[in-house]
């Protein structure tokens, strides 16, 4: 094909795709078009996916962990209200507190949303929660030791995060996220937010 013919073809194509390949100027910049379900099609999803893969590398994909990730929801049960660990925010009516934020961090790295129930501890030991928080001095986690995350200096011992049904994958994932939170200083930030400012000591 000669260059002139190519140019003519281009001209024809320009006219042809003028109808179908045009976008309004305001749509043209980075508009990703239709069909953007969750899962790696945006920059934020891609980055979160890589962080998640890094933190959870090698964690066994047990049925419970897989189900939580596939369903996009992590059920978290907490003991009854015990500020600043967990309480209902008076303004928003939503669960709040150190444990609620910690649960949110675990869910974030798993790539899911946390559903927190305050006072759902009994429900948790009844196996329906994926993760439950055991207070210091409470019975050990059912089906496992749980991951210690907070030592009470009042002599009550360790608070623990337990995996529902003692699930090995969930337990390992929780441990990994807690390591990540410690290494990155996020745990310390959360701690300062809820305890240091409140004059609490452990």
């Amino acid at each position, binding site marked *: 094909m000669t260059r002139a013919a190519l140019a003519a073809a*281009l001209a024809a194509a320009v006219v042809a795709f003028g109808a179908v*390949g045009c976008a309004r100027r305001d749509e043209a910049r980075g508009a990703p078009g239709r069909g953007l379900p969750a899962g790696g099609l945006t920059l934020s999803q891609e980055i979160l996916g890589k*962080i998640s893969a890094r933190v959870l590398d090698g964690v066994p994909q047990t049925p419970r962990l897989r189900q939580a990730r596939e369903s996009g929801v992590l059920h978290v049960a907490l003991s009854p209200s015990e500020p600043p660990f967990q309480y209902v925010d008076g303004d928003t009516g939503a669960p709040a507190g150190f444990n609620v934020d910690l649960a949110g961090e675990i869910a974030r790295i798993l790539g899911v949303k946390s559903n927190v129930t305050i006072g759902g501890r009994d429900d948790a030991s009844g196996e329906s929660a994926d993760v439950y928080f055991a207070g210091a001095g409470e019975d050990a986690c059912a089906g496992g030791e749980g991951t210690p995350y907070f030592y009470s200096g009042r002599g009550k011992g360790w608070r623990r995060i337990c995996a529902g049904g003692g699930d090995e994958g969930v337990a390992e994932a929780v441990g990994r996220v807690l390591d990540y939170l410690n290494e990155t200083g996020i745990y310390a930030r959360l701690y300062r937010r809820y305890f240091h400012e409140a004059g609490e000591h452990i």
Partner: protein
Amino acid sequence: MTKLLRHAAALVVMASALIACAEGAERRVVVFDFTPRQAKGYEWVGPALAEYVIALLRGAEGFSAVERAVVVRRLARLGYPPYTASPLEVKDRIREELGAGVIVEGDYDADRSSLRFRGSIIDMETGELVSNLQFRLSPFTVFDAQRELRSRLEKELGRKLKNDMRELLGTGSKEAYTEFCMGRALYESGSGAEAGASLEKAAGADPSYVAPLLLLGRINLEETRFETALKHLQKAVGEAPENPEAHFLLGYTMFFLRVLDGAQEHLRAAVRLKGAEPDYHYVSGMVHFENGELESALGEFRRVVELDPGFAEGWYKIAVVHSHRMEEEGVRSALEKAIETGGKDVQVRLEKDRDFDWLRDRTWFKALMRRRLR
């Protein structure tokens, strides 16, 4: 006669461009990375040429070209990571999803003495090969190849294209650009740790060059070295306060660090600079949501789905906010859209999500859950 024909064709192109671009419409093009065939050690050249074509088209009146990152992400999601060949039908699918009419694609062989480049411009609507962009350079540099591409595009389009390296590529330093391209290729091939050295050299060669700073920030963010990521990204924002991605990445890093006020400040800047990017609004909405600012969160999630009605996660988040406010009709309409765009994945999630427990006995909710979806 040939010369006359060429001029006539150029006039037709320009005239049609004017017609096509009336009322702000643009011809949208997807440029795929040129695939290295026999090019060991020169894998970085393909993206360098692709991004150059994108920059040329973005600078040309009447054209828009999809950002390289968007194309690369979509290919990877379909199982074609960077630097691997993908079939034309996959490219056509991506083109269609992105609402474009034309693709530019190709491959090349390269070694220390020569570059053999084979590129095409294809109108996928008609299946017509609009142009061959084939050439051989011996010896070559990436800048020679870019110049050759520009010259061929200028001839095909019948007009001059921009030719300012800093404007097109973000730096006027050949050393900085080459090091950046090498570092990017290492990162995109899964060697993030090795990419750092090249990117640091690029940033050193031209401290005002933002691209290596952004990639250094992103690599450190993904490696959860948040403080180091912050350092690079703060520098990027300092160098380029009008760069939306710099603000976005800085805000996103702060979000991970739970510095929510700082995160919101930079996400606001990103949104101000590039308001048509749904992802920026989405993350901004998440920060508002976690701060308990439901009204602001709702506003951001609504903007997400205005910009991209197929963003299922945006609809889902709208439903969650309405649910927190016990607004049944809002939940209902948003969930309809979430299911319409997200399909069965959304249904599976709804089964378990206790935010919607208060609605489970409603007839409409049961019907939604019973709906047969793919």
